[in-house]
């Protein structure tokens, strides 16, 4: 029935009776013939984390610490801002003692609130936070590359079962995303709690009562976003490597 084979596998689909509309959108029609529902990919990613729990913990640990550091530093600034807003000279002196960059008395014409807003961390502290985040990201890339390499055969098998490259990418991104969010949440909260505690120890009760909830909320959100973002960034390269593997290479890999 079929003469010489058609140039495109449209002929293939036609032969097996699959409906094949012509024109634009044809590629998407075929693409949808192999699917991985989102809920299922979530299930699989979660299962993978659960099974490799210890390994996940180690990957996440460095993220938790780095995000905690970030959150701690930012919370410290929040505490200081709250204290400056009170306008009390005693607290101001205490802040200057602790190393915050403030003039001895408020400059003419500026309100306490303005000063509080401008109060940031010093350049040195910023650098340390940045470095710790960088180190953490490198650690994540390394851990994820290792994870992908370990699972070469699994990936090759899934491709033999018909998985598209995008499925593999999605599974790894989801895994890393979930780890990132969980770890960042833990780190951000932990860092915040310690930051407030240290403020309390240094400056007394005023440190706690003067805290603006909005400030804290922003700090929390920012820390989590940074942590999750880095986690995803760290897994992009390894996941792309995994997704692009040809099944036969994947299965030849020694385990």
């Amino acid at each position: 029935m079929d003469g010489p084979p058609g140039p495109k596998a449209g002929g293939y689909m036609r032969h097996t009776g699959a409906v094949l509309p012509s024109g634009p959108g044809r590629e998407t029609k075929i693409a949808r013939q192999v699917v991985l529902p989102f809920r299922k990919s979530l299930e699989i990613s979660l299962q993978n984390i659960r099974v490799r729990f210890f390994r996940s913990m180690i990957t996440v640990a460095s993220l938790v610490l780095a995000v905690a550091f970030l959150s701690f530093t930012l919370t410290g600034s929040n505490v200081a801002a709250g204290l400056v807003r009170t306008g009390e000279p005693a607290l101001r002196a205490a802040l200057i003692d602790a190393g915050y960059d403030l003039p001895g008395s408020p400059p003419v014409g500026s309100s306490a609130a303005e000063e509080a807003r401008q109060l940031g961390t010093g350049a040195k502290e910023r650098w340390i936070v940045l470095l710790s985040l960088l180190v953490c990201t490198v650690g994540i890339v390394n851990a994820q590359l290792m994870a992908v390499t370990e699972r070469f055969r699994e990936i090759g098998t899934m491709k033999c079962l018909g998985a598209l490259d995008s499925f593999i990418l999605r599974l790894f991104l989801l895994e890393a995303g979930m780890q990132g969010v969980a770890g960042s949440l833990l780190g951000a909260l932990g860092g915040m709690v310690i930051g407030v505690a240290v403020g309390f120890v240094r400056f007394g009760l005023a440190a706690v009562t003067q805290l603006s909830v909005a400030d804290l909320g922003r700090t929390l959100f920012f820390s989590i976003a940074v942590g999750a973002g880095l986690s995803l960034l760290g897994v992009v390269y390894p996941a792309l490597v995994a997704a692009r593997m040809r099944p036969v290479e994947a299965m030849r890999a020694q385990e």
Partner: protein
Amino acid sequence: MAEAHNIVRVSGVAKTFSMGAQVVTALRGVDLTIKVGEYLSIMGPSGSGKSTLFNMIGGLDKPSSGKVFIDEVDIAQLDAYELAWLRNRKIGYIFQTFNLIQVMTALENVTLPMIFAGASQDEAVEKGLELLGLVGLRERHAHKPQELSGGQQQRVAIARSLANTPSIILADEPTGNLDLTTGEEIITLLKRLSSERGVTVISATHDYKMLNVSDRVVWIRDGRIDKIEGREQLDISVGTIGSKD
């Protein structure tokens, strides 16, 4: 009923691998046609190009020259989506190392291809249990591969390969990691399923026990087909160790 047509046609396929400075010619021009419903074994010593030919047929690798046609469609022309569709629906794979996904239960392993094919969870589970029943492992459906023996894992792999009712099953050394009796069981199972369902089975193997059940045997040596023998021409008696009464 239409006469048996060629489900796989290999035409002038050659493959060379370059590993750094060295060039290895795995296949030197192979021609082969395989009919629907056949049980074909590709046999040959290690390094003969058996696995390479096998990978070509299964669309796992591209030939350096020549063409492979599945159902008269040149698979080199297929894009990634169409290849995925092919692997999902038309071909079932069985490997020497079973290749089950360790984090999933037997049932989940069997239903995974069905999920890719878009089946609903209920349909998939129902069909998965049915297939596991066919291979005699229905009660062990909730067990993970670590909790199953080699023979049982291979049986799960066979059930998985039948998930989307494929036309072709490709078995790469299915009995390679199994002992004599288990290997025999697997071969009998494969033969039974293939004749019941009209599935074409193509296996690459060292195992002489396969000869008894094959319709044709292709002998490969040094990247070329040595000879192709049909059932009548096969005259090998294999002694059985530890045979059952």
